[in-house]
C-alpha cells in the first residue's frame, strides 16, 4: 500500500525580552540556579502576574509577518497539570482566544516549487522551569530561572507531507523570528524548540490517521531523523496488523528512535479556564498599524529582491537570506568590491561558508570582515589575481590581519597577463614534453589539460587562465 505522511509542527520560540512575561525577573541565559526566579515565578501566595508589553508587541509583530489575524481581545487561560518544575500547578497560556490566528508561511522546496503552510494559531505563554535528574541520590533538582520566560507557541496546520518539508518550514520560521528580532533562535539553549505531530494514511484517504506527538527535537537534523523514524514505525505497525495509539513520544538522538512517554498518557486533560488574575489583552487597530510600519524586509521579500536585483539563482539567494546578518554581509561586499554579485555569492556560499562551518563560527564571528573579503574579490574581478591564487590568499586572509593587496604584494602573486612572458613559459613547457606534443598532434586532445597544468605549475598558478588557453591552442596547433 502507498502511504502519505501528514505532519503538523508546534514551535516554541522564546521571546527576546529582558524580563519575564509576568514578572520583573531577568531572562538571561546561564545564570546560577534560581537566582532569576522571583516570588511571582515561584507562584508564592498573594502574587499577581502583570503582562510584559514587549511580549505583546513581539507576538503582534510575528502575527503581521505571517499575514495572520490579530485578535483584538485575546485571553489568558490556565493549563492545569502537575510537575515539579511548574510551581503554580498551572501554566499561564492562551486557549480559546490566542493573540494570533490564521496566518501562513510560504516555503521553498528543493525542487524549486513554493508551498504555502498555514499557521493555525500563535499564542503567548510562560515557560516552565528545568528539572535536573542526575547527581541527587534519587531526588530531582529544580531550577526555576526559566519559569515565566515568555514564549510564543506557533502551531501549523497539518500541511506538511515529509520530513524534508517539515525542516524547510522550520528553517523558514527560524529565519523569520530572527529577522523580526523577537527570538535569538538558539537551538542549543532551547530558545527555539519543536514538537512534531506525525501520522500516516493511505494515499487518497481524506481522514487523518491517528497521530503521535514527538517531543524533544532540538536540532533541524533531529527533526528530520525523528519524523522519518516515526513514519516508518507507524507504517510497519499498521502493515503488521497493529494500531497507532495517540500518545506523546520522546526522540532519543543517541539511539535514533522514538519511544512512548509514560507520564504524559493521562495528563492530556488540562482543564483550561480563563485566568482570573489577568484581564483580556486589548490590541488597538492603531497599534497594529504602527507595528506594521516597523516590520523589516522579510526573508521571502529579500530573497526575491536578491534574485531580481543581483540576478542570483533561487538557490544562492536562499542561502544568503537564511540570516539577516549573512544577507547584510553579502550586500556590503558587493558594494565595496564592485565585483559581480554572482562572484560574491559564490565566494560567500563557497569558501567562506566552508571555513566558517569547519570552525563552527557564525557569519558575525567571521575572522574575515566585509572589507577584507571585498578587497580580495576586487582583485579577482580586475584580473590582478587568478581565482586559483585567490584561494590561497583567502587562507592567508583567514589566518592573518593582512589585506588582500598586502598579501599579493608581499608574496608576488600578481597574475601574469603579459603575453610575451606567458608565451615564453609555454614554449618552455612544450619543449620539455616532446612525446606529449607528438601524441596531442596525433589526436589525443585530452593532453591539452596536461599542458595547461604544466604551465600553471611552472608559474606557481600566476598565469591568466584565459590567455593560457588561447595561446596554448595556437602553439600546439603548430
Amino acid at each position, binding site marked *: 500500500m502507498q502511504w502519505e505522511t501528514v505532519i503538523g509542527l508546534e514551535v516554541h520560540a522564546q521571546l527576546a525580552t*529582558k524580563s519575564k512575561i509576568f514578572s*520583573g525577573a531577568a531572562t538571561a541565559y546561564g545564570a546560577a540556579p*534560581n537566582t532569576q526566579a522571583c516570588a511571582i515565578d515561584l507562584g508564592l501566595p498573594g502574587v499577581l502576574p502583570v503582562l510584559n508589553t514587549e511580549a505583546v508587541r513581539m507576538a503582534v509583530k510575528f502575527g503581521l509577518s505571517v499575514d495572520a489575524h490579530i485578535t483584538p481581545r485575546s485571553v489568558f487561560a490556565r493549563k*492545569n497539570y502537575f510537575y*515539579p518544575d511548574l510551581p503554580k500547578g498551572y501554566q499561564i497560556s492562551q486557549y480559546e482566544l490566542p493573540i494570533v490566528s490564521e496566518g501562513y508561511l510560504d516555503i521553498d522546496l528543493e525542487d524549486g516549487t513554493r508551498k504555502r503552510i498555514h499557521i493555525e494559531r500563535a499564542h503567548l505563554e510562560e515557560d516552565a522551569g528545568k528539572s535536573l535528574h542526575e547527581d541527587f541520590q534519587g*531526588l*530531582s533538582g529544580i531550577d526555576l530561572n526559566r519559569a515565566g520566560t515568555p514564549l510564543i507557541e506557533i502551531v501549523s496546520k497539518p500541511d506538511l507531507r515529509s520530513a524534508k518539508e517539515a525542516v524547510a518550514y522550520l528553517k523558514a520560521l527560524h529565519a523569520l523570528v530572527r529577522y523580526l528580532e523577537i527570538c535569538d533562535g538558539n537551538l542549543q539553549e532551547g530558545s527555539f524548540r519543536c514538537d512534531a505531530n506525525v501520522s500516516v494514511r493511505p494515499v487518497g484517504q481524506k481522514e487523518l490517521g491517528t497521530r503521535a506527538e514527538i517531543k524533544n527535537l532540538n536540532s533541524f537534523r533531529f527533526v528530520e531523523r525523528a519524523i522519518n523514524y516515526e513514519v516508518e514505525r507507524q507504517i510497519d505497525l499498521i502493515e503488521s496488523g497493529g494500531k497507532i495509539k495517540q500518545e506523546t513520544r520522546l526522540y532519543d538522538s543517541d539511539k535514533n528512535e522514538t519511544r512512548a512517554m509514560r*507520564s504524559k498518557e493521562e495528563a492530556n486533560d488540562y482543564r483550561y479556564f480563563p485566568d482570573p488574575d489577568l484581564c*483580556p489583552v486589548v490590541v488597538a487597530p492603531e497599534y497594529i498599524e504602527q507595528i506594521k510600519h516597523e516590520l523589516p524586509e522579510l526573508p521571502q521579500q529579500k530573497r526575491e529582491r536578491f534574485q531580481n536585483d543581483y540576478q542570483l539563482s533561487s538557490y544562492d539567494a536562499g542561502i544568503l537570506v537564511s540570516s539577516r546578518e549573512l544577507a547584510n554581509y553579502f550586500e556590503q561586499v558587493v558594494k565595496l568590491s564592485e565585483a559581480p554579485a554572482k562572484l560574491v555569492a559564490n565566494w560567500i556560499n563557497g569558501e567562506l561558508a566552508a571555513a566558517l562551518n569547519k570552525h563552527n563560527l557564525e557569519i558575525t564571528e567571521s575572522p574575515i570582515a566585509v572589507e577584507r573579503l571585498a578587497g580580495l574579490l576586487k582583485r579577482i574581478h580586475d584580473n590582478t589575481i587568478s581565482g586559483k591564487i585567490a584561494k590561497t590568499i583567502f587562507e592567508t586572509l583567514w589566518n592573518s590581519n593582512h589585506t588582500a593587496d598586502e598579501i599579493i604584494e608581499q608574496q608576488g602573486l600578481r597574475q601574469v597577463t603579459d603575453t610575451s612572458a606567458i608565451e615564453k613559459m609555454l614554449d618552455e613547457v612544450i619543449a620539455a614534453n616532446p612525446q606529449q606534443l607528438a601524441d596531442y598532434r596525433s589526436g589525443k586532445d585530452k593532453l591539452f589539460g596536461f599542458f595547461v597544468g604544466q604551465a600553471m605549475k611552472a608559474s606557481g598558478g600566476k598565469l591568466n587562465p584565459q590567455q593560457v588557453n588561447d595561446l596554448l591552442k595556437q602553439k600546439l596547433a603548430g
Partner: protein
Amino acid sequence: MSLSPEEVIKISHLARLAIDEQAIPKYAQELSNIFDLVAQMNQVDTQGIVPTTHPLDIPQRLRADVVSETDQRELMQKGAPSVEVGLYLVPQVIE
C-alpha cells in the same frame, strides 16, 4: 447528569486530591448537582452574546520590559525542605 465512581476518581486524581473511598458516592452526588446547574444554564439561548472571560470589564494593564527583581534566592529557599547547589530538591519524576 450523574457522575460514575470512576469519573470521581479521575477528577480527584487530576486535582491530586486524596479522597476516602467511602465518600465517593457523596462526591458523585455533589458534583452531579453542579453539572446539573451547568446543564440548566446551557439551556439559555446565548447566541450573539460575547462570552464573559473576566468579571472586570477592563483591559489588561501592561508593564514595561524592565528587570526590576533582584536575586533573593537565599530568602526564597529558607522555606524549602531541601536545597542543594542552589536547586530545590524534590522527589524524582523522570521520563
